[in-house]
């Protein structure tokens, strides 16, 4: 299985019975899907469960998948819908989510820093910045957060996000915009970016 194969090629191979193709597909998307779910739900255990369920659904749905549908869009649609369903069953606990993500950022993932890592100052700065960014993201209303993550982290297009979230494209676009402006305000309040210059047309 070649690493440069498209998701769709891998999916075709998997449909033909090559489990390794699925493994490659999963390695490729595991971390993006998990990150998305963790930032959406704010709970590590839940994100992990949902990520696992997302891929299990991909396995189960593989037989009926047709090459017209982009695998990534499908994957994130499943993930998003699972998260929404889970959230319906249990209200998000915002405070816990902040703690969880902040804690997640402070702990280095691989203890011995590689030679290419930034210098101590830079690393320390980044280590301080990350929890703040995570917290800013977590402070967004969930409908803004999901479109922001789908657009900026998962790399889905506006029409794809519209399909995944079931709202129209214009709504998706305005949510992304509000998300960016709200994030900016939060970052400005934290002193991470310069305070916003007066701008015309606030968010209605």
């Amino acid at each position, binding site marked *: 299985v070649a690493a440069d194969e498209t998701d769709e090629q891998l999916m075709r191979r*998997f*449909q*033909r*019975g*090559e*489990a*390794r193709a*699925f*493994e490659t597909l*999963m390695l490729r998307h*595991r*971390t993006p899907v*998990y*990150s998305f779910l*963790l*930032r959406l739900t704010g709970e590590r255990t839940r994100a*992990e469960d949902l*990520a*696992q369920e997302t*891929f*299990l659904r991909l*396995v*189960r749905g*593989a*037989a*009926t998948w047709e090459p017209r549908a982009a695998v990534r869009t499908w994957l994130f649609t499943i993930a998003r819908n699972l998260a929404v369903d889970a959230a319906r069953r249990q209200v998000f606990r915002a405070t816990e989510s902040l703690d969880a993500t902040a804690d*997640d950022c402070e702990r*280095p*993932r*691989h*203890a*011995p820093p*590689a030679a290419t890592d930034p210098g101590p100052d830079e690393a320390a700065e*980044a280590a301080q*910045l*990350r929890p703040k*960014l*995570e917290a*800013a*993201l977590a402070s967004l209303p969930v409908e803004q957060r999901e479109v922001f993550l789908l*657009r*900026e*982290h998962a790399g889905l297009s506006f029409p794809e996000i519209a399909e995944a979230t079931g709202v129209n494209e*214009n709504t998706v*676009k*305005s949510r*992304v*915009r509000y998300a*960016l*402006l709200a*994030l*900016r305000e939060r*970052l400005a309040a934290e002193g991470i*970016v310069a305070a*916003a*210059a*007066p*701008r*015309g*047309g606030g968010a209605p």
Partner: protein
Amino acid sequence: MTHEPRRDELLDLALGLLEPAEARALETHAAGCAACRAELAALRQTREVLAGLPPIEAPERSAAVVLAAARQAAEAAEAARRPRWAAPRWVWGGTLGLAGAAALAVLVLRFSGPTAPGPLSDDREALLGQGAPTAAPPGDAPPSPAKVAAAESSKPAGEPPAGSFAPARRAKQAVGIRGDALGVAAPAPVSVPAPAPTPVAPASAPAPERASPPAAQAPRAELAAEAKAMAPPAAKMSARAAGADADAVGPPCRLEQRRRFSRDATGRVVGRVREGRYPAEGGEVPLTVEERFGPDGRLLGATVRAGDQPLMVTEADVAAGRLEPLPGVVLARTAAEAVSVAPRCEP
């Protein structure tokens, strides 16, 4: 001049979605319009800052259940693909209601013990978390004779079993090789009652190779030696994997989560690779232990990587008995030991 900023377009511009000509036109406008300039700057700057947020790595442990499911689905898909008639729907996880005698035969064969490797393990990888079917390093057996046999036996009776003899022969051959390599006598393929009607072979077909179930059963005995070595964690994990219980899937063995053997053309073990995690300051690092064995089966040397630093274990080290390059990471003196020894889980 003041106006409401063209928000949609400014967002597209900030996200880099506009055509070059459109982008230039809007940039030119924004340069002379304070409101648009401010909005564009705000969007761009925020985007840039947030882009510094790296993905959060997915924990390793949840992968096993999914990969086990993928492997089963793939095996079922491949088995279903072989017969000429349409693939039964149930193989992809639908209902079992439609399963006839032929379909049951596939199931019985698939769950009756460690089957030969499916595609996931064709590089001879054994992920412990995948449960019993993959726990035994499959070696050089042909891709899944059990699967082939199952597919063949599920053909409607009367259909010429084209190609159904090859798997039986190949399986036997593999048994012979493995028997030699492990010093275990190859078991005689005793006849096992077929759970489904055996395909009717043409009159000219050689009789002894007609029945497929013995061919499918043979690898079980053949793999027994290695399966035994892996038994405790594998058995524990198989229940978890099968149950698909997310909470129950923990890292079964820290130091050794995967074990893989490489063999030469004759089936002799010439290398073993173990992958796991090793405790380090502030967390855990990936651990890889690669052992190399000579033609006589003795350890030639090894490479141990914990995190990014490789540790070389040379022939001199081996000769001097320095076989524990890291606390708890113990090298096998011989290939036979590598195959038979149970995984050591904690330093």
